[in-house]
């Protein structure tokens, strides 16, 4: 889990010259074929994320459409292997246990019987005789339950549950029979959202603090630098565990906060250095001389000139955070139970590989690898385009 994103940004980026900078960068970017291809892929992912967030796709990922561990058929390309029979047998054994334990020779466990009648049967029945002859326990609900049960409602849970479930799915099903394809789409939405939001949060935090420290210097710088070195000195893993302990709730928001609050230090260092440099520049001195308030200088004058650093940093952090989410899930600090992410899928699926159930691991791992690859390539292209120094080399 080496953190590499911190140091991979060139430390010195020449000052930009006005509006032409972004236009020029775009021109450079357009020439980068890998960059263009990757941006198409990333855009495709973002469309999926967007549709999924709107609920247009994968909103029913939680629905159990297939049988447990339904194998993949890739729309008919694969011949699905029937699921292991051991489970089915286990179900039989369970049913057997229930039968002997609860109903003697009676039917399925879920067949509703008049509860009072059952109690009476226990009190008077032959099987229970001797074991539980006269219970002194009064059931205040007995009357109600008898009325409810007396409607003759019959429910066969096992049959109903298994009715109309598909025996194979395009990408297979998970342990509950949920479609791995929709789950992966939903997971992509969550993971990408988490990665980007956390990166945004960390960058905002780091930029704000870095700007203050770099621009004001003095006491402010001392205090912020101190906070930076304290955060930097505590082992990352412990910091994460501690922040996770503070944020008791589980969910997407928590994961974003954990990653964002612990990941700002790298951005801080970079932005602080940038502000330190710009502080002495003429345009800043001039603005000061005109009595422009500090707030405006900080965020309207200097910030646009360092924003490309922040932009590259956001995308580098996003990649790191998407991968970190997997580790967080492994440690039990992932998304909530009714949410799904690549991390939660990988952690659910990793033990299934030995049992021959590779599809969930493959789907989540593959989607993640594809996105992280294209996103990293895009980041590279973006950095090359934004950083004129590297351009000179080619």
């Amino acid at each position, binding site marked *: *889990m080496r953190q590499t994103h911190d140091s991979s940004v060139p430390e010195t980026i020449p000052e930009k010259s006005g509006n032409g900078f972004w236009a020029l960068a775009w021109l450079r970017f357009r020439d980068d074929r890998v960059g263009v291809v990757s941006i198409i892929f990333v855009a495709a992912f973002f469309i999926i994320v967007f549709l999924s967030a709107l609920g247009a796709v994968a909103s029913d990922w939680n629905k159990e459409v297939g049988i447990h561990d339904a194998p993949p058929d890739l729309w008919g390309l694969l011949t699905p292997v029937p699921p292991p029979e051991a489970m089915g047998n286990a179900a039989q054994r369970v049913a057997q246990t229930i039968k002997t334990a609860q109903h003697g020779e009676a039917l399925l466990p879920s067949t509703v019987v008049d509860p009072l009648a059952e109690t009476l049967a226990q009190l008077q029945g032959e099987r229970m005789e001797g074991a539980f002859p006269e219970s002194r326990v009064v059931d205040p609900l007995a009357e109600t339950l008898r009325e409810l049960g007396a409607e003759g409602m019959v429910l066969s849970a096992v049959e109903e549950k298994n009715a109309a479930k598909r025996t194979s799915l395009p990408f297979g099903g998970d342990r509950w029979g949920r479609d791995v394809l929709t789950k992966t789409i939903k997971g992509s939405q969550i993971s990408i959202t988490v990665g980007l939001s956390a990166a945004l949060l960390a960058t905002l935090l780091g930029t704000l603090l870095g700007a203050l420290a770099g621009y004001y210097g003095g006491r402010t710088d001392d205090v912020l630098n101190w906070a930076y070195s304290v955060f930097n000195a505590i082992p990352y893993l412990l910091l994460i565990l*501690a922040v996770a302990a503070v944020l008791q709730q589980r969910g997407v928001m928590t994961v974003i906060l954990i990653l964002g609050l612990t990941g700002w230090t790298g951005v801080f260092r970079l932005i602080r250095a940038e502000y330190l440099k710009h502080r002495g520049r003429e345009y800043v001195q001039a603005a000061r001389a005109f009595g422009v308030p500090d707030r405006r200088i900080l965020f309207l004058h200097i910030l646009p000139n360092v924003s490309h650093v922040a932009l590259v940093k956001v995308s580098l952090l996003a990649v790191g955070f998407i991968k970190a989410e997997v580790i967080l899930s492994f440690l039990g600090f992932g998304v909530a139970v009714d949410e799904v992410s690549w991390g939660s899928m990988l952690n659910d699926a990793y033990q299934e590989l030995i049992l021959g159930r590779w599809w969930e691991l493959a789907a989540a791992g593959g989607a993640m690898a594809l996105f992280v690859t294209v996103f990293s390539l895009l980041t590279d292209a973006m950095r090359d385009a934004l950083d004129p120094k590297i351009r000179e080399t080619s």
Partner: protein
Amino acid sequence: MTAYIIRRLLQMIPTMLGVVLLLFVLFNWVGGDPAYILAGKVFSEAQIANIRYQLGIDRPAYVQIGIFLKQIITADFGASWSTQEPVSDILKTRLGPSLTVLLPLLVLGTLLAIALSLVVARFRRSLTDRMVMIACTVGMSISILVYIIIFQYVFAYRLAWFPIQGWSDSLWTNLTTFAALPILIGLCVGLAPDLRLFRSFMLDEVEQDYVRTARAKGLTEKRILWIHVLRNASIPIVTYVMAALPGLLVGALLIERFFSIPGIGREVLLAVERSDFPVIKAITVYVAIATMFANLAADLIYKAVDPRVELK
């Protein structure tokens, strides 16, 4: 220079105080109450009170912080709350296995990455460079969890090239047998990002004037790269590797768990699970000190190599 070092050392004191304070706050008001972990299945309030008294966590916060500071100064963190093992022993015994995996990994990984980065720097902007870079990007986009699962299954179980898991007392056996697969996985996970980073260091150097001069003098490209560029690029590389080590010590957690390596990462997780404050305190303090000194050393190396760098 001496004055600079002294100033930097003095600056470590407030940082350390900050670490102490943050750690204390996090694990006292936020972490699980250790008394309830140690109390077992069934207990009474009196037993909880007794455990608190025994551990000294019923004392006022300032007294506890005072004790903590004294522990840092004397480097004696007492004994683990749950196992009675002296904390100094814990560190001694867990550091070895961690380093057995990490040092070879760092050395091999760095050397391999340097060699490869020189090769791609030689062919910079060519198709080869591009392909290698894309391959690296793909390699680093796969989660470490997936690497571990698949490598353990394929190389240890299916092909039986390595043992599944385990650890011995002999350094040699560990290096050749038990640490081998973890190191291999570490290489796969770490090589790609290292290579990308080192390549950018190399490219930075390739642009420098001295390279042009050397070329003008008629030196071969190979010689320029392997001698001149490498010498200069090695500074950021060494500092980067040094700065990465303290974090890696704690971070190799997943590998340690899957391969049953008794390292620091597993110990941290275990200590957090058990709310074993003495162990957490000691590991945090030592890692913090290691981090601070690594940073200082990195700055000093920069200074030593490039006198233009201003030490502030």
